[in-house]
């Protein structure tokens, strides 16, 4: 027993990620944690998307399964698992079978290098960002094979659209990423890094999120990435591969039940994945807001209390709606359920106040909060924008984002060179 505690303790005090430290046991635990966390995030996202979209559209959204429809995603997941799994007679069965797994694998493998905190990542690769872009672009293979294997017209057109779209936007995306990597090299040793953790640490060292670096260059790069990532994940207004009104459901028209839910899972985890790239590269990853302006132990304490307070606030909201539930015997179970949910949130909030937990969890909290902001943006886009047409989509990709990205890269390089020269003259490395 003591040995186990010691073992955990030794890990908690380590300053390396389990992968980098070569600790397979902890790496496995982390993989399971990330996998479980992602699945919960996707389920939560499902509920949130439906609720937020519904409230944007003057309706209530799911209200029946559980209080405020909280159990709706679980009911849906059950339904999808129990549904008949249809493989069209004319489909290429093997490829049809494999395609969703390619997509899901690509979407999940990306999370190997996502840093939720300085030590909270499965591993830290020195080519982290390259690995992420490379693996996430593999998902297009799954989509193309899915469309092709269905042996049907709509999926085929959807797959073609999807491949063209993802390839086009990857270029602009890559250029924006390279401009960030240039920024990481602004230190005394003039060494840039491709490591995800390294990029965040560079932002910490330079005391500036890269989104504000070389204003407005960082902002432009961030903007390019933010547009390209929506296109990469096939979300509105770039959801042409699955444009419902044109191609019924695009590349997954012929999929049903569990296989369809894999595409769903992949889509949402891909959204989370690209959002975490954006957060890591431009928004300081796990760093709390104003790490340099509001320094000192007092501010550290204040910011470390925010996670717990957020959960307590959510718990408060839940209790408020519990009180507002209709006082009718039919709603008794729902009211109790909602109160229980509120209590759970409250307990989590209180746990987050424990000093030991507080310090270790705040990185994950800030990272997730930033990603969550992106998730909200995704939903907001979907509620607001009509869909682009295919040629317009290509025009935006090739004629707007790509030249802007190139210009941005050149400008960033020039400005970076200038500040490096200045630093050499002054002998001070400070922005």
């Amino acid at each position, binding site marked *: 027993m003591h040995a186990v505690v010691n073992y955990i303790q030794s890990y908690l005090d380590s300053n390396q990620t389990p992968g980098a430290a070569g600790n397979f046991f902890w790496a496995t635990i982390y993989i399971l944690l990330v996998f479980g966390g992602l699945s919960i995030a996707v389920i939560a996202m499902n509920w949130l998307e439906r609720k937020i979209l519904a409230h944007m559209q003057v309706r209530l959204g799911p209200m029946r399964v559980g209080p405020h429809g909280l159990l709706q995603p679980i009911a849906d997941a059950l339904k999808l698992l129990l549904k008949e799994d249809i493989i069209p007679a004319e489909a290429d069965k093997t490829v049809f079978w494999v395609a969703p797994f390619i997509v899901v694998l690509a979407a999940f493998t990306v999370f190997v290098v996502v840093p939720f905190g300085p030590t909270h990542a499965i591993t830290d690769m020195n080519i982290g960002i390259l690995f992420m872009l490379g693996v996430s672009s593999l998902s297009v293979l799954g989509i193309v094979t899915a469309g092709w294997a269905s042996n049907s*017209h709509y999926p085929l057109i959807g797959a073609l659209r999807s491949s063209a779209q993802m390839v086009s936007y990857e270029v602009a995306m890559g250029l924006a990423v390279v401009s960030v990597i240039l920024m990481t090299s602004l230190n005394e040793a003039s060494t840039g890094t491709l490591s995800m953790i390294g990029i965040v640490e560079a932002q910490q060292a330079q005391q500036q999120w890269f989104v504000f670096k070389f204003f407005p260059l960082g902002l432009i790069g961030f903007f390019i990435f933010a547009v390209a990532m929506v296109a990469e994940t096939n979300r509105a207004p770039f*959801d042409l591969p699955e444009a419902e*009104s044109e191609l019924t459901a695009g590349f997954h028209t012929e999929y049903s039940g569990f296989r369809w839910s894999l595409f769903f899972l992949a889509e949402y985890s891909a959204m989370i994945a690209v959002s975490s790239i954006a957060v890591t590269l431009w928004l300081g990853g796990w760093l709390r807001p104003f790490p340099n302006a509001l320094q000192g132990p007092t501010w550290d304490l204040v910011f470390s209390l925010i996670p717990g307070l957020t959960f307590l606030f959510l718990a408060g909201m839940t209790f408020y709606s519990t009180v507002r539930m209709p006082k009718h015997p039919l709603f008794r179970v729902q009211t109790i359920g909602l109160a229980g949910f509120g209590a759970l949130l409250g307990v989590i909030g209180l746990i987050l106040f424990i000093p030991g937990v507080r310090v270790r969890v705040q990185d994950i909290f800030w990272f997730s909060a930033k990603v969550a902001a992106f998730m909200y943006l995704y939903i907001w886009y979907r509620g*607001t*924008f009509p869909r682009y047409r295919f*040629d317009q989509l290509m025009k935006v990709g090739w004629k707007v984002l790509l030249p802007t990205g190139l210009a941005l890269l050149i400008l960033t390089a020039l400005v970076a060179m200038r500040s490096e020269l200045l630093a050499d003259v002054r002998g001070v490395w400070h922005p």
Partner: protein
Amino acid sequence: MTEPRSLSPLDLETPEQTFLDANELVINMGPQHPATHGVLRVILRLDGEKVMGLECVIGYLHRGVEKIAENRTYTMFNPYVDRMDYVAAVSNALGYCEAVEKLLSVEAPPRAQYIRVILTELNRMASHQLWLGTHALDIGAITPLFYTFRDREEILKIFEKYCGARLTTHAFRIGGLQYEAYEGFEKDVKNFVSFVKPKIDEYEELLTTNRIWLERTKGVGVISGKDCIALGVTGPVLRASGVQWDLRKAQPYANYKNFDFDIPTGQNGDTYDRYIVRMMEMRQSLRIIEQAVEGIPEGPIMAKVPKVMKPPVGEVYHSIEAPKGELGYFIVSDGSTQPYRIRVRPPSFVNLQALELMCRGQLVADVIAVIGTLDIVLGEVDR
């Protein structure tokens, strides 16, 4: 007058060959498809995403309304017309009742006329709102649908209070109205007008200046005024192409000549202009409703019509400006209680013919936009 363009049909004799030896793809859109507004089937010939040609296959909702009419009395047929353009049932009924009244040489009393105008214009509003919601949904904006349906609900509530039905209202009778306006009808209508005016601004806020909406609708599905006339296209589609023609002004029926309203027109004849024209039409409808509700006279609501209607031998063609275009009834009477022949000139059916001209050379996504902008109702196309 230009020579009408030839609308040559597709050569679909050997679709397999076409598919194999050329870069063309024959795709079957519908009859079950989320964006064909019912059971329209469009056979598209695609080169990549470009539409090389298309053919509409219709009739999946054919119920033989014209044959039914020959086996019913004039009164019995009245509810059937509601089932054609089921989102603008009141307009259909107005056209039919007026046509039979003309055949009988009677006229509905003024009070009935006013209430008819109010209900018909409310229905035009409802039809346009439904169009806007579904059209925006086709183009990918999902939110306007819920806004328009929320507001359309208020119109349907007025209908329900007036005659008990929401959609297929059967609101009018030959010779006037069956029901007196209920207590508080005028107040309800006035409340609705003041309620919906800011809502139209709300729709426009969502779409009119939205960049993506502009890109998706400007220059899409262009049709010139001349082509419109050659193809018999009427209604907002014709007006958006710059022809200022509205039957309410050109050949006023009911008592539209008593009201002051404008005919909005566009210039480019593209999807965006049609959108703008319909938005402006909603405002004009509100104007008419406001005037009509102020001026409802007292008096009877039913003219003197015989219990058993036997119109004299003869025939009549009467048409009205339905939300979709010119809705005409050609009725032949042989002096008996049943119409000898009723021909309905459905605006959706004729307008749909322009689809090929408007879509050729455009992309698949535009076909959806054009089907939406033509504002067809398959119940009326197929009858």
